């Protein structure tokens, strides 16, 4: 009888195949470490960041555009230098990461859940329902996230009283990115569901009276998780960047609270002008984030894939 206490469960996890394949591949360990590090810095940003870039009263324009501390003209208080608004680059990355991680993961989750469910329903219950879902997908597919965001933003601003706009900004971002990205998941899952639906094990399950919903979730879903994971991990990077473009349109976070994406978008204007650190470090952070997520996605997909075990 498996020991269901926490330590027991932990021990049984420790010697399971999953953990074994994790231990063996070096890249996955590094990726996991990087991801944990990024999460920790994001969650504990206020505690560990040397400065608070969002406290605009504390900014002193005199020390803007300082190079990283190890270069001449650098100030040791600002390890990686400061940006045009005299915000410490390191702290801005920590705070920016917080927003980008939340928006990124929340929107990918929303898109994945919505997409997978509609894909399953579409593929499983083909015919009329399937046609509607696919056509709604086509409609949504043609709208770039930018336009959907403006619509949701407009509606949200219309409903909520002025003082709640701050909080609403994040919700608008997640909804906008999520609602425009679910289509990829839906179509992929639909494709696989059409194939799986023919398989004997599904017909067998139906003959013994298993509910359609349970069949979809417990039988078909594990088999279609592979491509979904690939898309989800790749889309995370895209979601963070889309958030930056939306902020540019005034829909996202206010400029005084830049996300990681916004730091890159603003910094990009200065790529040529010599203050490269304003864009290179945030971009590097994003690159590490996306890399880590995708490598872990790969490992998870191979480890969980029922066929590969």
């Amino acid at each position, binding site marked *: 009888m498996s020991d269901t206490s926490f330590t027991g469960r932990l021990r049984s996890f420790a010697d399971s195949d999953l953990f074994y394949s994790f231990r063996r591949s070096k*890249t996955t360990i590094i990726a996991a470490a990087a991801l944990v590090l990024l999460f920790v810095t994001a969650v504990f940003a206020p505690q560990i960041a040397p400065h608070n870039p969002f406290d605009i009263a504390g900014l002193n324009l005199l020390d803007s555009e300082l190079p990283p501390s190890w270069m001449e003209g650098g100030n040791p208080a600002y390890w990686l230098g400061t940006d045009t608004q005299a915000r410490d680059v390191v702290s801005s990355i920590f705070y920016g990461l917080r927003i980008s991680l939340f928006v990124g993961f929340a929107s990918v989750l929303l898109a994945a859940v919505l997409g997978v469910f509609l894909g399953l329903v579409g593929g499983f219950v*083909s*015919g009329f329902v*399937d*046609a509607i879902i*696919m*056509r709604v997908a*086509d*409609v949504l*597919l*043609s*709208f*770039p996230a*930018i*336009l959907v965001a*403006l*619509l949701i*933003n*407009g*509606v949200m601003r219309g409903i909520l009283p002025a003082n709640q706009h701050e909080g609403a900004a994040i919700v608008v971002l997640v909804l906008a990115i999520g609602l425009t990205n679910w*289509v*990829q998941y839906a*179509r*992929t899952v639909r*494709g*696989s569901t*059409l194939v799986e639906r023919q398989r004997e094990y599904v017909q067998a399950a139906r003959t013994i009276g298993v509910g359609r919903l349970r069949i979809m979730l417990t039988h078909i879903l594990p088999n279609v998780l*592979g*491509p979904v994971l*690939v*898309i989800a991990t*790749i889309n995370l*990077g*895209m979601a963070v*960047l889309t958030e*930056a473009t939306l902020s540019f349109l005034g829909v996202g976070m206010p400029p005084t609270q830049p996300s990681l*994406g916004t730091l*890159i*978008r603003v910094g*990009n204007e200065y*790529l*040529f002008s010599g203050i490269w650190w304003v*864009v290179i470090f945030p*971009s590097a952070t*994003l*690159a*590490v*984030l*996306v*890399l880590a997520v*995708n*490598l872990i996605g*790969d490992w998870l*997909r*191979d480890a969980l*894939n029922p*066929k*590969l075990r």
Partner: protein
Amino acid sequence: MLVFLVRRLLQAVMVMLAVAFIAFLMFRYLGDPVNNIVSQDATQEQREEVRKRLRLDDPLILQYGRFVVNAAQGDFGVSYRNSRPVSALLAERFPATAELVLVAAILSLALGIPLGIYTALKPRGVLSQGLQILSLVGISLPTFVTGILLILVFSVWLGWLPSFGRGDVIDIGWWWTGFLTATGLKALILPSFMLCLFQLTLIMRLVRAEMLEVLRADYIKFARARGLRNRTIHFRHALKNTLIPVVTIFGLQLGGLIAFAIITETVFQWPGMGALFIQAVNFTDVPVMAAYLVMVSLLFVIINTSVDLLYNVIDPRLRTDQTRATGRGA
């Protein structure tokens, strides 16, 4: 097959109507076009006049109805910004985007599939691990940063490639093509590579995942048992089976390319529909935006339908079984 096409056509019309309706709903939140038409020091009375002449104050439904009726006759109205009929603008711009997206798509397949196969056949190889990480870096850097870096290296430092524009184009009747001139081709290299980067990574990873799975299939084991050469097994038997799901994803991602073209065209000043759309958003040029969205939605329906048809061509199981073909294609 005909029934399938007719049904898809009907659905396409519905999709376009829905897209146009949502587009009109949305334009109210994009800012007021009048601000851009009249000069900054125009009087309130002048603004009212423009609003009246553009019939902006009509109820939404009326504006939408008028748009649909005109669109049916191919008249998408005139752009507020450069006072030219939208249909002419789109006809001029479509070839630029089409050629860019086409080359990017081909590039992503030409690079994506072989790389996907290589990383699948030698999963543990150092090179394939490296390739995988490299491909990931390609999509984790924001596109506008990669674009600028490409320009910095290939135009400014090396001076090999132009940093902007589409080079010389030749008018072959109804289409402006950049394929037939040296400068046109040179101008195409950087933007198409930047555009294909995202698609390339996705195809590579999907081909790898599918190939790994196919290599475990019984018919592959049987093929090896028959002593067939590795090359035949990998590139004939395994590859064809791998490509079926990749076709779906590719068809789907083709749509993504069109949306992505917007950023690429702005960075490389590529005179395509994407750049036109961004100008329209900045200028709240309602006719251009509405026409662009309707056309893009038509494009998506066409792409999705052709992908489903392509499914039948590649997968003989469907082709020979007519009834299931229409079922599957719904």
